[in-house]
């Protein structure tokens, strides 16, 4: 079953006085099935962050539709968007975006508190989750007291606490050292194995090679896509590298 359907998505930014306009997305279409682990790759300015913002309903598209479980996101009223995001989507950011005024525990619980869930339910959901992510011992620390890797784990826990239909990750390994990156990617692998739908925007070939499928974006259009199929991760890494080289070469010609 298709969880996410993206159809002819366009986004044009116009400067305030209507002078210059920049087309960030020029008609992107793809679908993501439930349980699929998808990576989106592209150079800076290729439109991948815009794509993520539109999928996250943080930004409205100029044209085209995004459907989550068949529901057109454009039909969600502005006032309900926040609640819609909270109930359906989980976010992992490059810069973690944990709030310094909350402990790690409270940061993870934040979406539940916003959704008005009971304090008992929070404990029930929190404990297995943090055990799985290995951050059970830092719950009472503040974000500025723990390492980057731990922060990102906490951010992942926050994204997962309400069991979202889709987890969106924006360069999740971008601010991490290689060891922490490996750990995070392993966690993503586990999540994908457990059937969690993931969509990750990344620069890193290594991160992308963990996904089941990689979409390449360039100048606002879907340029290419690869499926891992039965390949080993190493082999898939090679294929992605080749594709990127091709992408870069094609860019020079175009």
């Amino acid at each position, binding site marked *: 079953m298709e969880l996410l359907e993206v159809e002819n998505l366009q986004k044009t930014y116009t400067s305030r006085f209507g002078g210059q306009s920049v087309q960030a997305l020029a008609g992107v279409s793809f679908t993501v099935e439930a349980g699929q682990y998808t990576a989106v790759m592209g150079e800076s300015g290729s439109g991948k962050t815009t794509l993520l913002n539109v999928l*996250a309903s*943080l930004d409205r598209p100029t044209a085209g539709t995004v459907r989550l479980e068949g529901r057109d996101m454009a039909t969600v009223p502005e006032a309900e968007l926040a609640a819609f995001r909270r109930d359906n989507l989980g976010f992992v950011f490059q810069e973690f975006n*944990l709030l310094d*005024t909350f402990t790690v525990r409270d940061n993870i619980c934040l979406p539940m508190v916003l959704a*008005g869930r009971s*304090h008992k339910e929070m404990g029930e959901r929190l404990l297995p989750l943090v055990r799985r992510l290995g951050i059970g011992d830092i719950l009472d620390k*503040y974000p500025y007291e723990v390492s980057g890797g731990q922060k990102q784990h906490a951010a992942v826990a926050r994204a997962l606490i309400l069991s979202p239909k889709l987890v969106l990750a924006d360069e999740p390994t971008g601010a991490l050292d290689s060891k922490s990156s490996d750990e995070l990617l392993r966690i993503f692998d586990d999540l994908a194995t457990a059937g969690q739908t993931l969509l990750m925007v990344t620069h890193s070939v290594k991160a992308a090679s963990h996904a089941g499928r990689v979409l390449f974006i360039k100048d606002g259009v879907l340029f290419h896509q690869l499926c891992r199929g039965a390949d080993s991760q190493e082999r898939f890494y090679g294929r992605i590298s080749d594709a990127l080289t091709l992408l870069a070469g094609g860019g020079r010609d175009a």
Partner: protein
Amino acid sequence: MRKGFYPRLAWECLRKNRRFYTPYLITVMGAAAGFYMLATAGDPDGFADAGDVRLIMRMCTVVLGLVCAGFLLYTNGFLMRRRGREFGLYAVLGMTRTNLTRLLLWETAYTALIGLGGGLLLGALFDRLLLLLLARLMGVQMGGPFLYGKCLLLTAAAFGAILLLIFFVNATRVGFMRPVDLMTRQSAGDKVPRARWLIAMAGLALLGAGYAIAIVTPARMESVEIDIILIFFIAVLLVIFGTFALFLAGSVTGLLLLRRWKGYYYKTRHFIAVSGLIHRMGRNAAGLAIICVLSTAVLVMVSSTVSLYAGLESHVRRSCPREVMCEFSSEAETNWDALLEGAMADVRAAGYHPENLVRYRYWECSWDKEGVSSGYFAFLDAAGYEAITGREISLKPGQILTTGQADSLSFWGMELDAAGRLEPDDPAAAYLGRSMGLGGIDQQYGKPDTLAGRDLAVADGDTIEALWRTVRGRCDTDQDLSYGYGTTIDHLIEFDLPAGEDTHACRVLVERYVVDHFYDMETGFRSGGRDAGSLRAELMENYGSLLFLGLFLGALFLGGAALLIYYKQLSEGYEDRARFAVLEKVGLDERMARRSIRSQVSLVCFLPLLTAFCHMAAAFPLVDQLLGIWGMYDTGVFALCTLASAAAFAALYGAVYALTARTYGKIVQGPGPAA
């Protein structure tokens, strides 16, 4: 490096950061000017001539110095946080700790030169202007030097010390940080909030002690002699330190307790507010405490000086039951009836229209009980009693009416019969107490319209004369008699004048007539008196200058509080911008986020105001007592003035808050940093 490099670099630094440094320099200037002006008010050569006022001004100067130190340290902390990246960059570019210290030293020098120098100049100028304005308002000559050397030195020393302290704090902070820390400190710099029970408890204890002193002292005043101004100062210091400790530690401790209460904490509204406040209070405690202290000072000064001024008319009426009061006495035989009637005829002839005329004789004597004198009696002649109260009484010679207890009284060998009893609150007692100013003289009794412990005794005029002669004969010398007893009987004449007639001139006329027609000056003739017009003018001058002082200091302190609130909104705006963005992404809708952050900020802003109201309420009984020193006994008027000042202050505070909140709103809604 080339000569003159640091002075120029330091100047550039200040110029580049002028958005933050201009208000800071203005603050230093204003604080120094205010401090100087307050110091001159307490100077022996200054315009506040009364000793008590001067003492209070000195107290205020000390408090203002403390507050200024705290305030400048706080604003400096804010400035340095914003400049962390700049210093980090200098360090990365190769400036050593010594270099940075030299840079800071030059910056301090400029701050001192502009802030302190400008402040002293402004202070001297405004001081002079204020004096001139006061002189014009009160219609009196105001002396005093143009510059108060001692006060200038004091101000320079105090602010020099404060700026030097700030320099050391900054030098230590910058010197011991690694460049990387300096550069990232702007965003981090958070400390884990901890419950500090000891400081919180100490704060509670200090505040409790201050409150207790303020509330208990007035009751104890009746039995123990207390230096009320000193007590007030001690209470003020206790409350200031208590407020600081409570804001620093108590608030965070309390909030952390709230956080432990999970059923409360994990609710959408409380969750964000409590956790936000835990951090916000920890960082802003000093600023909030200063706002609170300043607000309290404004409330106390404005309410008390306004109520002095507002109570002026009732003070005049209390001290002068009739608008003109003339008092004469002599040991020689005198035809008082002819003399006083002649005087009144003269007054009428001069075009005055006296009304409610009262004439009476007054004499104080003690009761001789078994050879020992005890108990004071205030004798009033029967005709005077009838004139004052409008009641009719009939007394035979040798009979008295008294508020005292015994049936027959022996006064130095002369027996008097008590023909009846007067109630202790007899209107004549109140009238005499006011007219003689007995209550006001005796602080211990405090109430103006009583005979301050004396018993009222009414007898006919001849009996009083006979009694006086007896006592006079029994005593060998005046010395014995003057031992608390009236050497002579006072003859008083009191009357009102219609509005517009000069009470002072009229009184002078009566006195002159009596003096001119009283031929024997050898026999210890005395005259005295009081009139509403002169008293009003005198009080107007005293209270007017106090009111001016109160309003001036109120404006000064309110300005300080307004600047502080502006700083707070500015710094919090920058912090909240990032928080706001993250919360939105995680699923808090914009409306809710805005409401939550607003309510937090407004709570933080209004907490000091509420605490200040609390302080004012606790201080009320003590200040009420303190006002008695200046003859203000009307608690009702003081309460009304306090409420009015509190309402006016709350309105002004709210306006300042609303204005600065707009700045805050602009910052939060502006383009946020990539969070």
